[in-house]
C-alpha cells in the first residue's frame, strides 16, 4: 500500500472539500448558464447585452485573477466602505467574506459563462413548434420551460456539459489561493513537508479519477433519461 506519511486523513478531508465545492459550483454554474443562455435568446436588448458581456468578459479573464479580484478585491472594497463608516460614524464593523462561499461563487460565475454557451447552442436546437404547442394550450412560460424546453434541450447540452464539469472539477484547486485546503493543496503541503514530489500525485489522481468514474456513470444515466422517445441514428455511418 501507499505510505502517505500520515497525510491520508487530511487528503480525504481535502477531497471532500473538493467534491463539495465542485458540486455546489456546478449547481450555481448551471443556474447562471441557464439564465444567461435564456437572456441571450430573449427579445430584450438589455438582457441580451448583459449576458453577452458576462460570457465575453468572464471567459476572458484568467480564473486565478477572478478569484483574487472577487475574494481579496471584494474584501478591500468592503473594507473601504466600513472604513468610511468608521471614520464618519465611529462604528467599527468588519465584514468578512467567507472563503468557501467565495470559492463556490467565483467558480460558479466562471463556469456559468461556459455553460451559457453550451446551453445557448442546445436551446437553439429545440424545435420552436414544440414550445409553441405548449403556449397554445395556455402553459405559463415557466411550465413551458420546465416541461418542454428544458428536457428537450438537455439532450443536446449533455456532451458539452460533461466537458465543462470535468474542467470545473479541476478548477476547484484554485481555492488554495483564498486559504482553503482542497485535495490538491493538501497534497502540495505534504509534498513540501516530505520532499516526495511524485508520491502525493497518486492519491490526487485516483481521487479525481474516482469522481470522474462516478460522473461518467451519472452522465450515461442522464443521456438515457433525456434520450427517451428519440431513436438514435448516430453511429450508422460506420456500417
Amino acid at each position: 500500500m501507499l505510505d502517505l506519511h500520515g497525510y491520508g486523513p487530511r487528503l480525504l478531508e481535502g477531497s471532500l472539500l473538493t467534491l463539495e465545492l465542485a458540486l455546489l459550483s456546478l449547481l450555481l454554474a448551471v443556474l447562471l448558464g441557464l439564465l444567461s443562455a435564456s437572456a441571450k435568446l430573449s427579445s430584450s436588448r438589455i438582457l441580451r447585452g448583459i449576458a453577452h458581456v458576462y460570457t465575453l468578459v468572464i471567459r476572458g479573464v484568467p480564473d486565478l485573477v477572478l478569484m483574487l479580484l472577487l475574494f481579496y478585491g471584494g474584501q478591500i472594497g468592503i473594507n473601504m466602505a466600513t472604513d468610511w463608516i468608521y471614520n464618519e460614524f465611529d462604528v467599527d464593523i468588519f465584514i468578512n467574506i467567507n472563503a468557501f462561499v467565495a470559492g463556490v461563487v467565483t467558480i460558479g460565475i466562471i463556469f456559468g459563462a461556459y455553460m451559457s454557451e453550451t446551453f445557448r447552442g442546445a436551446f437553439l436546437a429545440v424545435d420552436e413548434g414544440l414550445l409553441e404547442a405548449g403556449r397554445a394550450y395556455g402553459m405559463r412560460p415557466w411550465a413551458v420551460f420546465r416541461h418542454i424546453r428544458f428536457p428537450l434541450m438537455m439532450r443536446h447540452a449533455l456532451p458539452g456539459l460533461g466537458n465543462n464539469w470535468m474542467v470545473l472539477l479541476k478548477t476547484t484547486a484554485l481555492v488554495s489561493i483564498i486559504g482553503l485546503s482542497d485535495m490538491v493543496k493538501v497534497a502540495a503541503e505534504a509534498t513540501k513537508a516530505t520532499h516526495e514530489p511524485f508520491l502525493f500525485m497518486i492519491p490526487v489522481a485516483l481521487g479525481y479519477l474516482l469522481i470522474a468514474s462516478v460522473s461518467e456513470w451519472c452522465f450515461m444515466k442522464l443521456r438515457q433519461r433525456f434520450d427517451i422517445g428519440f431513436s438514435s441514428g448516430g453511429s450508422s455511418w460506420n456500417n
Partner: protein
Amino acid sequence: KDYDTVRIGVDIPYVPMEYRQPDGTLAGFDIDLGNALCEQAKLKCNWVIQGWDGIIPGLQARKFDAIMSSMTINDDRKKQILFSDPYMTPPSAWFTPEKSTLETPDKASLKGMNIGVQRGTVQDNYVTDMFGDEASIKRYATADDVAVDMEAGRLDIAFLDYPTGKAALVDSKDGKFKTVGDMLTEPKKYFGEGFGIAFRKRDRELADTFNKALAELKSNGTYNSLYSKYFPDGNTH
C-alpha cells in the same frame, strides 16, 4: 487602530521555519518566535494558514494583520508593504549535485550552466543580474521542484536561501547534493537585511510594538535559545 488580537498569516510548510507537526500543531522558528513576540508585547496572536499566492492580497484585504513567513526584506518590496526590523538573516547558498566538480561559482565557471532558482526571490534577482548573460536561469515555483530537476539532470547548480535549500536538497536527498562556494548575505541591494515581519503600510504602531518586543527578546536571551533550537549548527545570524 489598536490591536488586542493580531492575526498572523503564514504559508506552511517551510521546514524548519514553519510546519505542521504530526499532531496538527504548528511549529518552526517563525512560529515559536512569533508566539514569543506576542507574549512579550502582551498581544493575543492567532495564526492564519494562507497559501503564498494569496498572502499579500490577504494582508491588504485585512484577512490578517501581519505575515511572518520567511519574507525577505528588500527595497522593491518595501514600497508595497511595511517590514519590521529583520529578525534573522539567512544567507543564500549554492547547491550542486554531489559529483559536480564546480567549486567557486563565478562568471567564468557558470558559463553555459543551467542555474535553478525560486521564481522572483532575491536569489533569482541576484543571479539574473550577475550571471543572466552567461548562464541560463531556470525559475521554479518551489525548492522541491528545483531538487527534482537537478536530480533529473536538467540543472547544474541551484541558488537558494540556505535553510530552504538545505532542507530540500541536502537533508532530504541523502548525499545527492552538497553546498559549494561561499554563502552570500551581501550586497544588501539584493539580499536586503534578512527576514522580516510584514504589515500593512499604515500599521506603523503595530510594527513598532513588534520591533520593541524583538529587541527585548534579543537582549533577554530568549531569541538565542530559540535560534539554537532550530539552527544548532548556526549558519545564520
